[in-house]
Structure formats: structure tokens, C-alpha cells
């Protein structure tokens, strides 16, 4: 069966930042199978095309939502969608964050920029079961305070430690300035007993995962979400290759044992 998008109506729209919008969807007719945190969908903008977007909310907890940053023709079109508009979505595709591997352990979740969005459903799932984990730490970095997503929601989370830092402060910013790895020293975790989840720009994933591994977090307990060009999401178009991986089916979530050698080769 050809993978054809399923119509979904935009039921809520929230402008997160100047260039980022969260859209919440309800199926117009038949629904897609349940997404897991970390998985992605191909989202269609009518007349423009399709892009892969990880889910920022799943059906099981609050309904299907995508957070989209406007960086090209398709994402521009999606960011301009209004409540009531119909958008085509197909999925779920790819691997998910393995939260079961964190049970009984310290959890460290590190987000850079829009990389916060794919981690959000994982954070909600972990916080919904506080007794299942020794501690939960959420570390968030962004370019500027204006680029921070869901600040009120983040402030409401009951974690062992929540840190927010920006590269460039603005006049009313009283928080941390610097790269997100600088927050690791304040988080409450025992590296050998930690499961970590990292999503953000590739240099941030590389720096953060290396630092976590250096601190003693086992490499196979550091999960990262990778991004590559994708046209089909079904393993046929060849675009999402990263060395031996087809990111659409082996990823987007892979562990650092797998990702480290691949992200260490320039232009792979």
C-alpha cells in the first residue's frame, strides 16, 4: 500500500517563538496508529510538500501535536496553518525513546533549541511516573531567551533539577548564559546509574553526548535523535543515509554507541 497522508484538522495552534509554532491535530476521519515519544511523522503542506517532524505530543497524553520551526517552504506553510485547516499526516515512523531503560535510574534529558520538541512527550511520560525513576533532570539550551519553547510549562515541572541556559542573553534575562553542557554540573545524577536523552543541533548532540560519556554515563544508555533529509520515511528513497543507517528506520533515536563513530566523520 502506498503511504498516503491521512487528513488531520488543526484544533489548536500556539506560537512558541517568532519562528516556531505548535499545531495540535485531530483526525478528520480514520486515525493513525498511536505514536510513541521520539517517533516522527511525514507532515504535508498542501501544494508545498512533506517534511519529517518528530511528535511533540502523542495521542496517549494530550493528542497528536507537532512543533514546527519555519526554515523552508513546507515548514513555512505548516507554521501558517490556522485552526480548522486540514493537513495530511502519515506515520508513525522510526524508533522511539526507550524510557523503559531508565526505570530505577537517574534520568538526564538535554534539549537544544527546537530539539526540545521531540523530548517533550518523553519528559511528560517520565514525570507522570515519578516513583519509577531515581531522579529526573531536564537541561534546556537555546540561542536566546526568545527562542525558548514552553517556558511556563517547563517551570511547572517537578524535577530534581531543571536548568535553562541561553547562548546570548536579552535585557530581561536573569538566568544562565552558556552552552547546555555547563548545566550538567548542577544536575543530580550518578553517571554510572544514568540514562540520558539528547536532542538538538548536531554539534550540541556531539558535545553533550561526549561530555556525558566522559562523566561516566554508559554510551549505550545515551540516546540521541538524529536528523537527515527524508523524502519517503519508508526506507526506499535513500536520502536519510548516515553511513550504514537509514535514519528513517534505524532511527531517529539511536544510542551513542551507534551514533558516535558516524557523527565523528565529516560530511558522512
Amino acid at each position, binding site marked *: 500500500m502506498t503511504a498516503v497522508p491521512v487528513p488531520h484538522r488543526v484544533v489548536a495552534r500556539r506560537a512558541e517563538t517568532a519562528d516556531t509554532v505548535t499545531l495540535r491535530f485531530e483526525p478528520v476521519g480514520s486515525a493513525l496508529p498511536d505514536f510513541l515519544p521520539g517517533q516522527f511523522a511525514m507532515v504535508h503542506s*498542501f501544494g508545498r510538500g512533506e517534511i519529517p517532524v518528530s511528535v511533540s505530543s502523542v495521542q496517549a497524553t494530550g493528542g497528536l501535536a507537532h512543533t514546527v520551526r519555519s526554515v523552508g517552504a513546507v515548514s513555512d506553510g505548516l507554521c501558517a496553518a490556522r485552526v480548522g485547516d486540514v493537513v495530511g499526516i502519515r506515520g508513525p515512523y522510526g524508533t522511539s525513546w526507550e524510557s523503559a531503560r531508565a526505570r530505577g535510574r537517574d534520568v538526564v534529558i538535554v534539549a537544544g533549541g527546537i530539539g526540545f520538541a521531540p523530548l517533550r512527550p518523553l519528559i511528560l511520560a517520565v514525570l507522570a511516573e515519578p516513583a519509577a525513576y531515581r531522579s529526573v533532570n531536564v537541561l534546556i539550551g537555546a540561542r536566546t531567551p526568545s527562542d525558548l519553547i514552553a517556558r511556563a510549562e517547563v517551570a511547572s515541572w517537578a524535577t530534581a533539577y531543571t536548568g535553562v541556559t541561553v547562548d546570548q542573553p536579552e535585557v530581561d534575562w536573569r538566568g544562565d548564559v552558556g552552552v547546555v553542557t555547563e548545566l550538567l554540573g548542577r544536575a543530580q545524577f550518578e553517571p554510572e546509574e544514568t540514562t540520558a536523552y539528547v536532542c538538538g543541533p548536531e554539534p550540541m548532540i556531539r558535545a553533550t553526548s561526549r561530555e556525558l560519556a566522559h562523566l561516566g554515563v554508559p554510551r549505550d544508555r545515551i540516546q540521541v535523535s538524529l536528523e537527515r533529509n527524508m523524502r519517503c520515511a519508508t526506507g526506499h528513497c535513500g536520502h536519510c543515509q548516515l553511513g550504514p543507517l537509514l535514519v528513517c528506520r534505524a532511527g531517529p533515536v539511536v544510542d551513542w554507541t551507534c551514533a558516535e563513530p558516524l557523527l565523528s566523520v565529516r560530511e558522512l
Partner: protein
Amino acid sequence: MSAAPAALDRDGLSALVAVLVADGRTVVGPTVRDGAIVLSELDSADALPYGWGVELEAGRYRLVPREDGAAFAHSAGPQSWKNFLHPSRERLWSADRTAEGEVTFTAHEPAAPAYAFLGVRPCDLRAIAIQDRVLIGGRYEDTGYGTRRRGALLIAAECTEPGATCFCISTGGGPAADPGYDLALTEVVDEDGHRFLVRVGSEEGARLLERVPHHGADLATEATARASVDAARDRMGRSLPPVDLRSLMGASLDAERWNDVAERCLTCGNCTMVCPTCFCTTTEEVTDLTGDHTERWQRWDSCFDLDFSYLHGGSVRRSPRSRYRQWLTHKLSTWHDQFDTTGCVGCGRCIAWCPVGIDITEEVAALDAERGTESD
């Protein structure tokens, strides 16, 4: 299918094509056009390239007349069967928007003529098996490919005349047809005449053979056919170094040789277009003038294209060096990781049709030599 081999003469082959055409099949086979032996729809066996061979070299392809009048004594031309099974452009689905803003999506029924492929070389038979693994062998199926593939009848022509750019032996293949065909022909031209040894590979092949005039192959025909296929094994024009290619590629990601080949490579993508296993595609959104009807089209793409690896902010593989490396390491190494098979059948098309004559066997040999130098 262990039935004794049969033999067809030229009239028998003509009858075979006539039966396929009468059955409503679209018969595709080699024919001479535009100075090359191309694959095209055939109305009759008369269109086969009787009496034509080819001379190949890196960046060079020439037709040459043959005195023996053979139809299948030529090696790979500019096309392969992917042009038919995995066409360069295909509509996937369309979407329509009403005045009220409701949107419906409609899957496109794939164009699927009942193909009969005549003269599939053993290397190309292996290439079809590789594309099967990629496009219909995984969790998701390329519907269009699957529909066309399952409807296609494959008549192989074993290789008795390898070209100067051929190296199928190095990729685990050979001039004899592997299973997967419906019928396999081996052409024999000698003082006893012009005929085709026929082996049956499927029930459908057997039924087809029953409908055309044929006779049991005599021992001499069988022996001559076997001998010429065996002899072809030793007549391959090129070879890859006899090393583990996966580990060679894995150890060569930082090789100096990529800079050397990047000096010559035009990143035109010809090698990926002529390659019988290269499967990569991109998608295009096409709207009509109303703006309320849009179509999703798939078309061939090439990893040599700068846009192939585009992410917001720029392409991952910007340098020609990284794009040639992607193509070669995928073909010979990471294809195994992704699809549990090599991506190269040694047909030599990428060598012949490279406008600057880059030779995959020479590049691999240079990478092997460079690794040897480093480990000394």
C-alpha cells in the same frame, strides 16, 4: 525445474516473442537505436540486435558489427531493467481541496503493463534481485515496483561475450544465470547453426515454452553452450581487488584517494542513472493552476546532487569528495548493512558511461593500495 534443456532456433525465438505479444504482454528487449543497444519495447524478435556487438572502455561505448549474427553477444547498454520496473518518474498520490477547505488524498494506481523482459543478462538478473530486496523486501513495500515486478516475466540471456568493463566475478556473480528467471537462453552460433539452449526456471516459463516450436537440445549444443559460458568467466575485462570490500571501505573514510577522484568527478550522477541497482528517489509537489489539486511525484535522484543531503542550513555532503565517497561506500559496504547484499553486480555501466572515464575498479584498487601503504 529439472527438465532436460530444450533448444530454439531463430524462428522459435520469433515465435516466442509473437506468443508473448499475442498474450498482451509488453515485450522489452535489446535493440539498436541511436548508436547503442538500448532496451525498448519489441514488436517482434526481428528487432533484436542480430549481428551487433559493443566495444567498451572507460568513458567509451561503440557498436561493432559481428560476423556471427548473434543477438545477445553484447554487454550492458545505457539502460537497465530499472527503467521499466522503477521508472524515472511516477505519480504516488494526489490531493484535492474543496472550497470549504476539506482535503482528500488519493493513492495513484501504479502503471503496470504485463512486462516480458527478453535478454536479461545474469548481472542484471542479480540487480533485479537486489532492487527487490530494497523496494519490496522490507517492512514497507514500494507498491508500484511490486505490482510491475510480480507481473513481469523474465527471460534471461546468459553471458558469452563479456565486455572490457565487466567484473561480475568480483562481486560474487558470473556469466551463468542464477535462479529467478522464467526461461534462460544461451545463444550458440557455430557450424551447426544459430540456436538458443533453453532452461526452464518456473512453471510459467515451462507453459510458455510448450507453446512455441522447440526440440530437445542435443548434447553438442548443450556442451557448446556450457563451454562458452564457462569461457566467459575468464574473459572479464576488469576485476576488483580480491579483498574484503566492506572492511576496505570502512577503513578508507579518510583516504587521500577521495581528493584525487574528486578532482576528476563532475558529480553529474551518470553513474547512478545507469547503475541497475541505484534506487534513490526524491519527491516533487506539482500543483495545477487552481491551486486546489496537487500531486506527489517520485523521480530518480542521485547522491551526487548537492540537494540530496540538504537539511535546513545547508547540505550535509557539500564536497564532491564526500559525495563520491557516499556512492562508493554505499555500493560496496553499507548496502550490506542496510539490505544484507552488495549493491554492485559488476555490470560495468558506471565505467562506460562516466563522461570522464572514472573506473570503479581502479578507484577501489587505489584505496586498497593506500591502505596497504599505511599499514606497512
